[in-house]
C-alpha cells in the first residue's frame, strides 16, 4: 500500500464524522494550546512582572509600622504599636551601608495654580526620594536640606500636574497651593506612567514633615532604606532592626526587602505556570482518553468493514496501521489546531500588553506536535490491535 493511499484511507473515516472528530481533536488541541501558550509567555510574563517591580532598584528595604506575622496578614495591633516617626527615619541615616533613607506618607489634596484646581495624590517624601528610587527629575531638583522642625514649603510636580496647571510655562519658581498652603515649585519629574496602578505623573511630592501636617497624620506610612549593592540584605535588615528596637523598645515594625517581595512574586508566577501546565497535562490526558474512546467505538462500528478488508487480502498489519494512522492523524490535527490557538493567544496577549515579550521557540512547537502524535499512537494502539486481531469470519458476520 502506498503512503498516499494509506493517508486517504485512514483519513476517510474521520472526515466522514467531522463533528465527532473535531470534538475529539479539541481535547488534544486545548492541551497543546495551553502548553504552547505557557512556553511562549512564561519567560515573558516573568520578565514583565519582575521589571515592573524592580524598576525602582532592587537594593531597597521598606519598614512599615506594625508587626506582620510570617504567615501573612497583619496580626493586629496588640499592646501599643508605636508609629514610625521622622526621627526614626533620621536615625537610620547613619547606619553602615545605608545610602539613602526616605520617609514616606501619602494622601490626597487639592492643588491650585493659575486659577485652575486639581485633586491629586500627594506624596510626602524625603530629599533622597528620587535617588532612592532611581527616578529622574526632568528639571529643577528635590529640596536639599531637611529640617524636620521647619520643613520648607517646596513641591516637585509630576509631569501631568505640570502640564495641567502650568501648560506652556516654566513652573520652576512659581507658587502652587497644596491643600490651601503655598508651596514653591522646585522641580518637575520625568514622566513615569502608571506603576502598579498608581499614576506617579498625576502626583506632587512635598517634604514628608509638611505632608504629615497637611494630611493630619501622626506617623509615616513607610520608610525606605536603600543600601550599597554589594552588601547582603540580611545584614542591612539586622542593623535596621537593631536600631529601631533600640528606639521603640520592641519589634513593632515590619521590614520587607525587595528580594523577599520578588521571591513571593516568583512563587506566585510558579503557581500560575504550574496551574496552566497541569491544565494542559490534564487536557492532554482527557484528549488521549477521548481518542481511545472514539477509536474503540470506530473499531466496533466498523467490525464488518474490518472483516471485509481481510477478505480482500489485507494483512493484520495493514489493518493495524490503518486504525493507528487514524488515531495519530486525529491527534496530530488536534495538535496543529492547538499550536494555532496557543500561538494566536500568545500573540494576542503581546498585542494587548506590548511590554510583555512573547516568543514561541520552534523547538517547543515541534516538541508539542510530536507529543500529540505520540499521544495518538499510545491511545490508538489498543483499539488498532483489537481490530487487527479480529477473526475475519466473525467480523464479517457483524453486520
Amino acid at each position, binding site marked *: *500500500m*502506498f503512503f*498516499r*493511499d494509506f493517508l486517504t*484511507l485512514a483519513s*476517510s*473515516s474521520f*472526515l*466522514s464524522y467531522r463533528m465527532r472528530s473535531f470534538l475529539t481533536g479539541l481535547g488534544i488541541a486545548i492541551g497543546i494550546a495551553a502548553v504552547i501558550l505557557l512556553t511562549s509567555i512564561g519567560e515573558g510574563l516573568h520578565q514583565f512582572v519582575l521589571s515592573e517591580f524592580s524598576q525602582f532598584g532592587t537594593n531597597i528595604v521598606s519598614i512599615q509600622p506594625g508587626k506582620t506575622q510570617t504567615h501573612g496578614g497583619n496580626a493586629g495591633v496588640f499592646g501599643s504599636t508605636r508609629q514610625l516617626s521622622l526621627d526614626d527615619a533620621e536615625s537610620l541615616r547613619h547606619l553602615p551601608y545605608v545610602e539613602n533613607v526616605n520617609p514616606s506618607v501619602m494622601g490626597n489634596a487639592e492643588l491650585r495654580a493659575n486659577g485652575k484646581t486639581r485633586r491629586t495624590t500627594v506624596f510626602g517624601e524625603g530629599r533622597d526620594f528620587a535617588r532612592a528610587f532611581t527616578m529622574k527629575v526632568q528639571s529643577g531638583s528635590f529640596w536639599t536640606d531637611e529640617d524636620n522642625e521647619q520643613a520648607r514649603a517646596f513641591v516637585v510636580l509630576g509631569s501631568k500636574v505640570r502640564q495641567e496647571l502650568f501648560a506652556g510655562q516654566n513652573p520652576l519658581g512659581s507658587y502652587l497651593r497644596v491643600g490651601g498652603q503655598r508651596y514653591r515649585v522646585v522641580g518637575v519629574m520625568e514622566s513615569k506612567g502608571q506603576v502598579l496602578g498608581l499614576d506617579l505623573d498625576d502626583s506632587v511630592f512635598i517634604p514628608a514633615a509638611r505632608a504629615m501636617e497637611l494630611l493630619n497624620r501622626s506617623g509615616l506610612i513607610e520608610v525606605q532604606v536603600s543600601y550599597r549593592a554589594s552588601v547582603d540584605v540580611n545584614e542591612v535588615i539586622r542593623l535596621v532592626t537593631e536600631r529601631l528596637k533600640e528606639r521603640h523598645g520592641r519589634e513593632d515594625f515590619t521590614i520587607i526587602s525587595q528580594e523577599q517581595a520578588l521571591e513571593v512574586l516568583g512563587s506566585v508566577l510558579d503557581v500560575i505556570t504550574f496551574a496552566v501546565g497541569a491544565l494542559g497535562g490534564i487536557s492532554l490526558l482527557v484528549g488521549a482518553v477521548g481518542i481511545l474512546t472514539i477509536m474503540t467505538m470506530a473499531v466496533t462500528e466498523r467490525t*464488518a*468493514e474490518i*472483516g*471485509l*478488508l*481481510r*477478505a*480482500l*487480502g*489485507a*494483512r*493484520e*498489519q*495493514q489493518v493495524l496501521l490503518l486504525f493507528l494512522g487514524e488515531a495519530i492523524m486525529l491527534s496530530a490535527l488536534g495538535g496543529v489546531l492547538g499550536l494555532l490557538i496557543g500561538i494566536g493567544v500568545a500573540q494576542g496577549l503581546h498585542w494587548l500588553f506590548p511590554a510583555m515579550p512573547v516568543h514561541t521557540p520552534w523547538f517547543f512547537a515541534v516538541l508539542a506536535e510530536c507529543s500529540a502524535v505520540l499521544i495518538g499512537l499510545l491511545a490508538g494502539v489498543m483499539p488498532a490491535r483489537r481490530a487487527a486481531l479480529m477473526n*475475519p*469470519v466473525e467480523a*464479517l458476520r457483524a*453486520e
Partner: protein
Amino acid sequence: MIEFSDVSRNFTVGDQQVQALRNINLTLGAGEYVSIMGPSGSGKSTLLNLIGLLDRPSSGVYKLDGMDVTTLDDEQQARVRREKVGFVFQSFHLVPRLTAAMNIELPLILAGVAAEERKTRVKQLLQNYGLADRADHRPDQLSGGQRQRVAIARATIMQPSVLLADEPTGNLDRTTGWEVLKLLEGLQDQGITLVVVTHDAEIGARAKRQIHTLDGRILSDAQRA
C-alpha cells in the same frame, strides 16, 4: 484446483463442540461452476470461508493449485486471498463512506498497485458492469443491484481464479437477482471457478455441478448432464 481431504471444522461454544463440517473430501476443478445448497446451519458458509482461506480447518488438508495452504501463516494466507480469491456477499459489504470507484479500487490499493494502473482498471470494470455514471456515488446512493455489481467488480478486479459468492442474490428482488447471477456466470464463461451458495433451488439448478450439504456433511454431489 481446490482439494479438500478429510477436512473438519469444529467450533467450541461454551463447553460444547459444534461440528460445522465433518470429514469433507471435495475436489473442484479450475473453471467449474458449482452451487452449494442445503438447510440453514448445514455448513455452507463455513465451507466457503475455508475455500477462501478466511478460516482454517480444525483438521485435514486443503490444497489450492497443488499447494498445501493450511500451513501458511496469516500473511501468506492474506496474499493468497488477495491474488486468487474473490468474495461476494449477500449483504454486499461495501464501505459506506467510499465511492463506488474507491470500493472497487480497494483490493488494488491494499496490494500496492500504482495509481495510474488502478485508474484504468477501475474505469474498465465500471464500464463492463454498466456503472460508469455511478463511479462517484456512495453506496447509499446506489440500488441493491448496483451495489452488488460494485461488489462483484471489487471481487474480480484482482483477476482471481476463484469467485466465492455466499447467497449473492439473497438481498435482491428476483429480476435483479437473475441479472447478478448472469454476470457471475459470464465471469465463469471467461474461466473463473465459480462457487455459489444459495437457498434458491432454481438458481442452484443452473450450476453444472450441484452440491447438497446436511449437518456438516456432503449429502450429494451431482453433475448436470
